[in-house]
């Protein structure tokens, strides 16, 4: 088996098709109209177990939305409810301007692509794609025209007479996509569409999905537990946990300003400090300067919408926004004159070179809390630090996000 390749930072994996020029040059396919999707106080109960609790969500028409969360968070249930494969215990689902809460799947103008693609193994590729049109009693000549058109579009016309098991994983995925799109849905649902593929193919299919979404101008709703996937694909990310929504944000917002400790942890590698609010200076832009008292460390300063003094809260800082320096340097010297900053001492416990990025594990001297610091490998070479060294870590209050819960 070949060694597992390290996933690269997202900016280097951008496919050329995603460039604005390419976007402009691919005309949208006709016959397809995107629709927005709204969940209004939707609840799903299985007996006493509440799978989805009072979820409200607006997905704009034409958006690529990812439902992101750990397994069992309710994201798949939410998707299945939108598609109509799961009944709704309470609340309302609206697609476009039509309430669809109690409509069968085929009447919702949605199409679903399944995790294992669910291609019919006994039918040819052509018959697989034709199936939905046949079920909707589309006339034979029209069926044939549309199947050929979509097969051409995914570039797999030559596989028409093959059976699904004669196709590679990537090809099967494209056929599953074609089978969903041929019915001209307004919304396409994707249930972990990339999880069955290996790492390299996943990155390629990811950009292909995004390309097709833009080409068709459809609303895509995708379930995933893969953070990088959600970041790279979405216009809108909905982070879910235990049947409720933790945060709805663009990838950039989510990356820079996680709303809760759960989100900060789930999107990965953030350093989180839990404490009590002791003071806050209100700012008009919602960037209050908040002082947290963290046991063993002392006061940490962060930015966000303050909660009352004395309330339990936390703050989070991205591993690439911390600064490491030999402990004898003067405080603040590497922060470019930032006014408010946090400073503490730690020991380097491990250095991991992962390619472009070097990951440095630290242990906070005061509390023993493990922290993570990330920098470019080049930057790390120049820092001239190594395992066992005592360092000062500093980070600006502006880079430290206040987490109210």
């Amino acid at each position, binding site marked *: 088996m070949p060694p597992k390749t390290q996933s690269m930072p997202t900016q280097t994996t951008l496919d050329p098709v995603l460039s604005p020029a390419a976007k402009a040059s691919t005309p949208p396919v006709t016959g397809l109209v995107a629709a927005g999707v709204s969940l209004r106080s939707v609840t799903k109960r299985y007996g006493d177990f509440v799978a989805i609790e009072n979820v409200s969500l607006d997905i704009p028409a034409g958006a690529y939305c990812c439902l992101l969360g750990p397994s069992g968070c309710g994201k798949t249930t939410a998707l299945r409810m939108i*598609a*109509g*494969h799961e009944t709704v215990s309470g609340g309302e689902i609206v697609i476009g301007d039509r309430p669809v809460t109690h409509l*069968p*799947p*085929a009447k919702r103008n*949605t*199409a*679903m692509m*399944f*995790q*294992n693609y*669910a291609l*019919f*193994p*006994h039918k040819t590729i052509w018959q697989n794609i034709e*199936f*939905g049109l046949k*079920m*909707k009693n589309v006339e034979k000549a029209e069926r044939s025209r549309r199947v050929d058109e979509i097969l051409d579009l995914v570039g797999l016309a030559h596989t028409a007479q093959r059976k699904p098991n004669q196709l590679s994983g990537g090809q099967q995925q494209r056929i599953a996509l074609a*089978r969903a799109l041929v*019915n001209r849905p307004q919304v396409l649902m994707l249930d972990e569409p990339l999880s069955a593929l290996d790492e390299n193919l996943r990155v390629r299919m990811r950009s292909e999905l995004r390309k097709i979404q833009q080409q068709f101008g459809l609303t895509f709703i995708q379930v995933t537990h893969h953070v990088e996937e959600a970041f790279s694909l979405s216009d809108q990310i909905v982070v879910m946990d235990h049947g409720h929504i933790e945060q709805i944000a663009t990838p950039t917002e989510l990356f820079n300003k996680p709303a809760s400790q759960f989100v900060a942890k789930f999107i990965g590698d953030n350093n989180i400090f839990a404490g009590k609010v002791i003071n806050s200076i209100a700012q008009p832009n919602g960037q209050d300067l908040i002082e947290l008292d963290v046991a063993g460390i002392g006061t940490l300063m962060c930015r966000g919408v303050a909660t009352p003094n004395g309330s339990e809260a936390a703050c989070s800082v991205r591993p690439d926004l911390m600064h490491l320096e030999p402990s004898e340097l003067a405080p603040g010297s590497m922060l470019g004159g930032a006014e408010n900053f946090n400073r503490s001492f730690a020991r380097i416990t491990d250095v991991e070179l992962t390619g472009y990025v070097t990951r440095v594990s630290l242990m906070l001297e005061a509390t023993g809390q493990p922290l993570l610091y990330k920098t470019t490998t080049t930057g790390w070479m120049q820092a001239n630090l190594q395992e066992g060294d005592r360092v000062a870590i500093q980070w600006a209050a502006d880079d430290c996000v206040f987490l109210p819960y």
Partner: protein
Amino acid sequence: MYQPWKTAKPYFLAAPQTLVFLMFLVFPIAMIFIVSFWQFNIYSMTPAFTLDNYIGVFTSGATLPTYLNTLKYMVLVWSLCLAIAFPVAYFLSFCIQRESLRVLLFLVCTIPFWTSNIIRMISWIPLLGREGLVNQLLLNLGVVSQPVEWLLYSDFAIVLGMVHLYNFFMIAPVFNSMMRIDRTLITAARDMGASGWDILKEIILPLTAPGIAIGSIFVVTLTMGEFVTVRLMGGGQSASVGKLISTQIGSVQYPLAAANAVVLLLATFALVIGILRVVDIRAEL
């Protein structure tokens, strides 16, 4: 390094079955084949090469009706088994959600095999006989004025007996096929607007076909060779090839019986090959 045990192990594992196969299947059938060309008279048989036995089989006036009668039983039993097994298997695999209940109900299907089939058939006499419970009930309800004769010792009884015996051989492979159907295929079909009937016709039936084929092979081969049920339930009135052969053996016409057996074997082979040509069972193996 040469490891004799590693090389030999697979052969050791396969050896018992191979020996049983050779000694109790290949060898006896070869014998039957050879004996079918021998000469015989009332007192003895002599090794020879004569086609007289086969000529006897094909010219005898009893052969064609007997074969047709056997085929009739086969077709009836096969279609009834399929008609009963398909809904039962469907119920077990699609309607029952709890795995433990499914296992329990599947075991219930095997209950007929917990006693010998002769005991079961004898136990039907007080049920189906002229004075039996069914007739009593029909008479008392006024449905009939005379006891129904064809409940026992009739084609009806033979088919009933065989369906009862062989139904499970159809249920098990059909159920197995259905359990292997990926449930998301059904969700996907529904997502594309398929009705329950469409799903049955387009998804479940084609994907269950290999199981139906395997079940059909069991039922067809078993009914083609039947003679115990025909003898017990037919009450001496009905004929089947199996019974014909056993009668010929009873009257020591071994070469003739052997010739009949070879013809039956070939006929059954032809049916099995026919089934395999219609359905690709590879998916099931």
